[in-house]
């Protein structure tokens, strides 16, 4: 079969495709935009609700324990981490949504490969691995100390707290390690896929 013959066969598709009317396209466009905006609002709302809830709890409990310096430091640390986590997660989500598809395929692939490589090997790539167990311990301590009606140091000295820390910290570490590994595996899979496509596009030998 000659190549111009292939092009002629391909031209038939224009007659065969069921094109959508202007009204249908308009409806489809409105529905898709609305759905995406709703998804965005949902994610933002949940993130803000969780972080603001945590911050309010930390402030109220810290105000009720004005004399306990260690408790204040514990809650202040958690507060700062919660604010940074909220800002960075929203920023990451925005970046994810702001994928620039309107560029040549090669540039688009290179941009995605660079961004994923940074995620996997960047300075903060292993941060969550340490942050999650630390936060887990600090939040547990904040709640536990508050409801024990004792000072931070007193609670830490009890056998119950020591056992809780010994058991809780490894659990937190395990959970964070498992989650980080899963995310890393997902990123690696995507990275391999993109590199394979980039190879296919650039390899002319």
């Amino acid at each position, binding site marked *: 079969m000659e190549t111009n013959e*292939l092009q002629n066969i391909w031209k038939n598709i224009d007659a*065969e495709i069921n094109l959508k009317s202007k009204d249908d396209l308009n409806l489809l466009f409105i529905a898709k935009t609305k759905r995406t905006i709703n998804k965005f609002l949902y994610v933002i709302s949940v993130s803000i609700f969780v972080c603001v809830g945590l911050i309010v709890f930390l402030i109220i409990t810290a105000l009720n324990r004005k004399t306990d310096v260690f408790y204040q430091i514990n809650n202040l640390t958690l507060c700062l981490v919660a604010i940074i986590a909220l800002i960075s997660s929203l920023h990451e989500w925005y970046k994810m949504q702001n994928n620039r598809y*309107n560029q040549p395929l090669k540039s688009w692939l290179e941009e995605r490969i660079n961004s994923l490589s940074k995620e996997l090997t960047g300075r903060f790539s292993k941060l969550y691995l340490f942050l999650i167990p630390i936060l887990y311990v600090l939040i547990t301590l904040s709640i536990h100390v508050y409801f024990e009606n004792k000072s931070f140091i007193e609670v830490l000295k009890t056998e119950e707290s020591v056992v809780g820390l010994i058991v809780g910290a490894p659990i937190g570490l395990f959970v964070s390690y498992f989650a980080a590994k899963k995310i890393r595996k997902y990123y690696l899979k995507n990275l391999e896929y993109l590199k394979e496509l980039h190879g*296919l596009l650039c390899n002319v030998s």
Partner: protein
Amino acid sequence: MKEEFIEILTNYQGILHKVNLIYFRNKSDREDNFQEIVYQLWKSFPNLQNKNSIGSWIYAVSINTSISKLKKESRIEYRDTLHESLYTIDTFEEIASNENFRLLLQAIYNLNKIDKSIMLLYLDEISYDEIAEILGISKSNVGVRINRAKEILKQSLNHLNHGN
């Protein structure tokens, strides 16, 4: 701005359908991807400066979005290989009238993801310069890749013809 966008979409929607057709065999995947392409086009519409290259812009966004969707949903790859016959029926129900076209599309499905888009652009009679711009590769690279994809396509068509 929205009216202008819908007008462009109405006139150029054939590109979206064709890109969908070469990448997705399942009708509902094509419908999902069509919506996703429309959304990505709308997002990048304010950055469209050269109104003379609307076609190239639509091809680029459609190809990049489709490839990204294939990455996100690897189940589609699974379907492609394991349940080919089932989803082939779905693809061809809309375009069943032309046997040659069915064979050509079947042969295109056998190409890799990059060659599929190169072949689509070639079959749509897009110039080598524009293909180079859409894919971000050199014009000479485009020529080499088209010749290679054509050879694979012809072999595949011969194979399918003898199979029938």
